[in-house]
């Protein structure tokens, strides 16, 4: 009998093992839901799967009676716009600040401690300030996401730049490269896939800040909807929405991975 650390499942077994927890959770939920509904058919806490599917379909395809809009898509578009803006601006800031602080000692001395302190401030604690300063519109929500993830990305990119072997920077100089050219041709292309990796890690927090700000002040959005229907214990809406948000987060993550794999073939090869 081999030690358990030396035993690896084959492909089908591995796949089955991966699916097992999902199936178990689903089964437990179905059993619990059926038990509660048998006692009280109008119980709102654990709606049946079919009820949730119905509710989800209604939200996705039937115009709302109050506003005449397709609620799910309006919410999704609003949330993804905020998230996308916040994440893209954070990436841009992270890339520029990270490269400069990572490569140029004077800039590092000037800004690195500041960025470190900035990243320690709990973003949700400053949310009221953002609402006061930027109003309760879109701007405050986007700024919260930026405030939450940009310092992290800046620090990560800075670290990746500092990790570049000195040999490469020296080599570039012996090829006659200026500081600007080193940034452009040596540092930027090597840091870009790492920026996407950092973004993937930051996306979890980005969703958190998005939903938090939507919960407090918004007129549409995935987070807004969940917190709105909470008042009516409307689990038929909340649970599918949570699943939908999870799916979106999953897809964004896969998209970033694919970009890395196809745009930077040298990147994966170096790590393996």
């Amino acid at each position, binding site marked *: 009998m081999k030690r358990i650390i030396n035993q690896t499942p084959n492909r089908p077994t591995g796949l089955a093992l991966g699916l097992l927890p999902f199936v178990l959770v689903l089964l437990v939920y179905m059993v619990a839901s059926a038990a509660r509904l048998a006692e009280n058919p109008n119980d709102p806490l654990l709606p049946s799967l079919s009820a949730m599917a119905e509710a989800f379909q209604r939200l996705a395809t039937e115009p709302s009676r109050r506003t005449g809009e397709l609620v799910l898509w309006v919410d999704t578009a609003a949330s993804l716009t905020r998230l996308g803006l916040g994440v893209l601006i954070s990436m841009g800031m992270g890339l520029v600040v990270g490269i400069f602080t990572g490569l140029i000692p004077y800039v590092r001395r000037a800004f690195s401690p500041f960025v470190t302190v900035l990243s320690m401030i709990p973003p949700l604690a400053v949310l009221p300030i953002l609402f006061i300063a930027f109003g309760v519109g879109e701007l405050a929500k986007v700024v919260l996401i930026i405030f939450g993830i940009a310092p992290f990305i800046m620090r990560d990119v800075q670290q990746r730049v500092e990790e570049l*072997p000195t*040999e*490469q920077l*020296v*080599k*570039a*100089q*012996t*090829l*006659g*490269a*200026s500081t*600007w*050219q080193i940034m*452009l*041709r*040596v540092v930027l*292309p*090597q840091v870009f896939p790492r920026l996407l990796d950092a973004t993937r890690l930051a996306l979890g927090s980005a969703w958190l800040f998005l939903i938090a700000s939507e919960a407090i002040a918004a007129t549409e959005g995935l987070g807004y909807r969940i917190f709105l229907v909470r008042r009516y214990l409307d689990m038929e809406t909340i649970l599918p929405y949570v699943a939908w948000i999870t799916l979106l987060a999953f897809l964004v993550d896969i998209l970033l991975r694919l970009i890395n794999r196809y745009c*930077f*073939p*040298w*990147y994966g*090869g*170096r790590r393996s």
Partner: protein
Amino acid sequence: MSAVTAKNLWKEYGDDVVLENINLHVPAGEFVTIVGASGCGKSTFLRMLLGEETQTRGQLLLGDAPMPSEPGPDRGVVFQKYSVFPHLTALKNVMVADELASARLTGRLFGGARRRARERAMEMLQAVGLDHAADKYPSELSGGMQQRLAIAQALMKDPKVLLLDEPFGALDPGIRKDMHALILDLWQRRGLTVFMVTHDLQEGFTLGSRLLVFDKVRHDPQAPGAYGANITYDIPLQRQSAELYDEVRERVGAAEQELLKENAR
């Protein structure tokens, strides 16, 4: 014409003396191999030639002018590893030298200029025997091929001085032999001045035209950093050309053969 001159050169880090009163004159066209125990300052000396470090006392001259205090295109370098850019293919690794020189703002060339840079880079790849791997990334190349690429890249700027920091240390013996042949050939044909730091004494003795041994002469057990290293041996290796070397090797080889035959009888 002198390539590198050191006059009463000292290098200290605080109280630690690394190099102590180095005096050296290297004429252009020499192939200097540098050996010595770990921590004897041979790598520090190479970094000073590179411009990464500056002396604390004395003078270091490149040609007739003081050594620049940062790396530049007049001194090419090949390190043991990380010498090439992992995000560029072999061809682009070599092309980048011309691109940086011609396009100060973007570091990229387009159209005809790009084609010319490409042709020049291909010629250089051919010279080091890598033309078949032009479109591969460094991670797809073997260790020996990566070092060939690093050499090709370094030679694109036609440096006066080529600095090699244990360039073949991580290679298999067979591959290392090929690399020796390559670097000797390039040295001969291009009239380079080469400084090579190596751990391999055999390599140091057979490869260059001059061997420097760095060592600490004095030791103070109470204060290990009190005395620095000096050049304890400066041995001219009487080899004028690779042809002569081949000639000698053949003769010696022939003599050995004769000897073997006689012994067999």
